[in-house]
C-alpha cells in the first residue's frame, strides 16, 4: 500500500490533464483572437494571415490541442510572442514575487485574524471588540483597489513614509539594505491584501471558537483550574482551527484573483498582473501555462491542507 500522499499525487495527474484540456478548449472558444493585439493597427491583411499561420492558429482546434499536450509532456509550455519569452521562464520569473506577497499576506492575516477571532469570541459583550469585529467586516467590504490607492495617498504621497510602487527601489541596494528595502515595499500591498483576507480568518475563527467553547472538555479544563489563556489557546483553539484551515486551503485559488488588482495598483511584478495582461492579449500559451501551474499549485496546497490536519489533530490518520 502506497502512502496516502503518494496516492494523492498520482490522482493529480489525470486531474492536471483534465485542467489542461478544459482550459485550452475554454480559452479558444471564448470570443476574441490573439492576432487583434499582436498584429498592430497598421498591419495588412497579408501580414495578419502570415502571423496566424506562423503561430499555428490556422490549424483545427483538436490539432492545436494535441500539439500543445505533446509539448507540455516534453516540459515545454510554448513561447509567448506577447512577452517575447518562453512561457515557463516567464511564469517562473514572476512566481517569487507573488509567493512572497502571498506568504506575507497569509501569515499576517492568519495571525491577526485568529487572534481577533479568539478575542471576539471570548469577549462577545465587550464594546471595544465589537467595534474591532465590525471594522474587520467593513474592511472586507471595501474594494481592494480603492483601499490600495487610499493607502498610497496617505502613506506614500502625503506622509512620504513608504514607497508607492514596485518591489525594490531603483537605488539598487545589496545585502541587508536590499531586504529592508524589499520589506518597505511589501508593507502597503500586504496591508491591502490583509484588509480583505483578515475577515475570512477572524469570522471563521470566531464562529468555530464559539462552538468549541461550549463543549464539555473546555468546561472540564476550566474546572480543573487551568489558566484561562491556556484553555483558550491550547485546548479550544486547536480544535477550532480545523475548519479554518479547510476553508483557507480551499480559498487559496480564489485568493489569486485578488492579486490581479493589488499587483496592478502597486506595480508588483507577479503572476496576478501577468494573468491579467495575458488574458487581455489572448496569449493562449501563457494563459494555458498559468492555469496549468496555478491548478497544480492548488492541488498541492489542498494536499498540504490535508496533511496539516494530521498535525493539528493527531487523531486524524490516513490509511
Amino acid at each position: 500500500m502506497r502512502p496516502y500522499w503518494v496516492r494523492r499525487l498520482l490522482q493529480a495527474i489525470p486531474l492536471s490533464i483534465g485542467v489542461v484540456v478544459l482550459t485550452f478548449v475554454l480559452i479558444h472558444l471564448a470570443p476574441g483572437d490573439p492576432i487583434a493585439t499582436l498584429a498592430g493597427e497598421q498591419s495588412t491583411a497579408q501580414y495578419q494571415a502570415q502571423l496566424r499561420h506562423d503561430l499555428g492558429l490556422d490549424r483545427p482546434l483538436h490539432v492545436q490541442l494535441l500539439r500543445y499536450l505533446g509539448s507540455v509532456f516534453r516540459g515545454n509550455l510554448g513561447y509567448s510572442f506577447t512577452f517575447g519569452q518562453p512561457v515557463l521562464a516567464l511564469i517562473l520569473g514572476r512566481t517569487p514575487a507573488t509567493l512572497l506577497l502571498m506568504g506575507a499576506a497569509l501569515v499576517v492575516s492568519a495571525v491577526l485574524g485568529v487572534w481577533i477571532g479568539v478575542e471576539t469570541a471570548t469577549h462577545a459583550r465587550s464594546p471595544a471588540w465589537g467595534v474591532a469585529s465590525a471594522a474587520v467586516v467593513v474592511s472586507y467590504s471595501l474594494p481592494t483597489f480603492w483601499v490600495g490607492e487610499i493607502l498610497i495617498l496617505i502613506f506614500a504621497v502625503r506622509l512620504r513614509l513608504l514607497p508607492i510602487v514596485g518591489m525594490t527601489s531603483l537605488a539598487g541596494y545589496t545585502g541587508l539594505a536590499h531586504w529592508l528595502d524589499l520589506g518597505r515595499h511589501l508593507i502597503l500591498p500586504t496591508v491591502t491584501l490583509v484588509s480583505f483576507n483578515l475577515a475570512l480568518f477572524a469570522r471563521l475563527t470566531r464562529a468555530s471558537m464559539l462552538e468549541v467553547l461550549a463543549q464539555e472538555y473546555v468546561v472540564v479544563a476550566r474546572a480543573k483550574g487551568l489558566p484561562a489563556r491556556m484553555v483558550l489557546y491550547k485546548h479550544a483553539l486547536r480544535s477550532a482551527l480545523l475548519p479554518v484551515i479547510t476553508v483557507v486551503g480551499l480559498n487559496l485559488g480564489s485568493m489569486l484573483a485578488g492579486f490581479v488588482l493589488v499587483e496592478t495598483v502597486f506595480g508588483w511584478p507577479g503572476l496576478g498582473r501577468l494573468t491579467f495582461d495575458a488574458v487581455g492579449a489572448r496569449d493562449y500559451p501563457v494563459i494555458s501555462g498559468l492555469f496549468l501551474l496555478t491548478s497544480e499549485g492548488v492541488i498541492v496546497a489542498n494536499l498540504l491542507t490535508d496533511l496539516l490536519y494530521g498535525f493539528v489533530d493527531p487523531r486524524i490518520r490516513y490509511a
Partner: protein
Amino acid sequence: MSARALLAVAIGLLVILPAARTNAAPAATPQRGGTLVVTLDADPPTLNPELSVLNQTFWTADQIYETLVSYDASFKPVPRLATGWSVSPDGKTYRFTLARNVKWHDGVPFTSADVQYTFGVFGPKYSPYYKTVLAALDAVDAPDANTVTFRFSKPNGVLLSLLGEPAFVILPKHLFEAGDPRTNPANNQPVGTGPFRLKEWVRGDHLTFVRNDQYYQAGLPYLDQVIYRVIPSSASQVAALEQGEVSMVLATLLPNDARRLRNTPGIKVVSPSVLARIIGLWPNLRAEHLKQLRVRQALSLAADRPRMVDEIAFGEGAAARGPVASTSPYFDSTLPVINRDVPAANKLLDEAGLKRGPDGTRFTLRLRHVASLDTFAKTAQVLKENYADIGVRVDIIAAETSTTLTAIFVNSDFDVAVYSAPMGPEPGLALTQYLSSQGLTKAFFSNAPGYQNLKVDQLIAESVSTTDQAKRGAIYRQIQRMIMADLPVIPLWEPRFLTAYRTDFENVFTQPDDRYINFTRTWHHSR
C-alpha cells in the same frame, strides 16, 4: 493706484518672477549626469521595435537603436544615422549618406550592409508595418559602406515621413543574420548604435539604460541613466511623479490629473501629437438605416462634441471637424465647425422616412466599443443621451479589446462603433487601410464601415505617391472634404496624449509626438 491695482501688480510680479527664472534656465549650459525615471504602464513585449507594434517598445528601444532620420518639433526630417539624402525627380529612388565612425554597442562598425539587411531581408519577412509602407520597394543597394539606395517600383511620396518611426530602426546584421530573428536573444538584450545601452531588465518592474560612452556624437548623451519603471495604475503613476519617485509620466496621463498638475509647481504638462487621433463613430454601411447618407448626417449633427471635450477630456482636446486631427500638418482648416443641431437632425430623419414609433423611438443602433478604453466608454454614453433626442435608441455593447475588434472588423457584427484609427503621420497609409476599397479584407484594422468611393480610392493612391509635400497636402485636404460629404466615419473629438515631467530636467520632450520620444539631449539640473 488703487489697492486692487496694486494687488494685481503684486500678483503679476509673483507670477512673472519665478516664470522668468525658469524661462532663463534653458539658456544654461547642459550639465552631464543625472537619472531620468520614466513610467511605463506595461513591460515592453520585446526591445526589438521592428517586431513590435506597441509604444512600450518604441519609447524604450528608440534610445538604444536608431533610425535613419528623426524629426524636429515641426515634423521636418532631420539627420540621424543618415547625414544626408536625395530623392530622384520621379520619386522612385532615394539615396542616403550614412554617418561615419558609428559603432554598434559591441564594437562592430555600423555600415550600409546593416541598412540593407534591415530593409531588404528582415523587414519584408517579419515587420508588421513593412508591407503597409514599403510594399513597392524593389531593392536596397549598398554601393559603398556609407551609402544606401532605396529603389521603388512606383513613386513613393511618404518615405521620409516614416523612416523616423521607431518601427524602422536599423538592426545589426551580424547579430540577426543567423536563426529565427523572432526568438533571437538580441530582441531582449539589444545591441544598437544609440546613446544608451541596456544595463538591466527586471521584468514587470523596471529597465535600466546607461550612457553609451562610445556614442558617435561627441559629448552626448548628457544623462547617466534612463530608468523605465513599470507602473500599471495611472493613479499610482501620478502619485509617484508628485512624490518624486519618477521624473516623467509618459503619454498616459489622464485629463483630470493633467489639469491639476498644470498648477503644480515643478511639473510641466505637454502633449505634442503630430500623430493625433480622432475618436469617431464608425457606421456599418451594410446596416439597413446607415446606408442612407441622411441618417449619417443626422447622427453627426446630433452629437454634442463640445460636451465630449469638456466632460470627458476636461478641455484637454478639441471637437473634430474632419477625419484628420487639427494637430496634423495635413489638417484641412477650411472644414466647418459642426454645431449640434437637433431640429435639423430630426428633420433629416423624417425626410429619410424614419418615423417615430409610439414610444418616440425611430430605430435602434447597436453600438460597440472596447470596454477598457475609458474615453470610448464615456463617448458612447454621451452619444446614447444625444441620440435619445432624435428618437434613436442606442444599445451599448462594451467588451474587451480582442472580442470587440473581432466583432467590428472580422464579423461586421455592429451597427455603429466608437473607434479611433491612427491617421498619422501620413494619412494616406491609414486611409488605404481603413477607408479604401483595398481595405475591404475583413482583416483586423481594415475598412470596417465597408466604404467604397472610387474617386476617394484614386486620390488616396495619388497622395502616397506624390513626393511634393504641398501637393500631397492639397490632395489630403480634398480627401477630407469628400469624407465629410460621404460620412463613412463620423468624427467626434480629438483626445490628447498627455505627458507630465519634473522641470529639473531640460530638453525632455522636443519631438513632435511621444512616438518619437528621445532622450539624447535631455539633461538634469544638479542643484
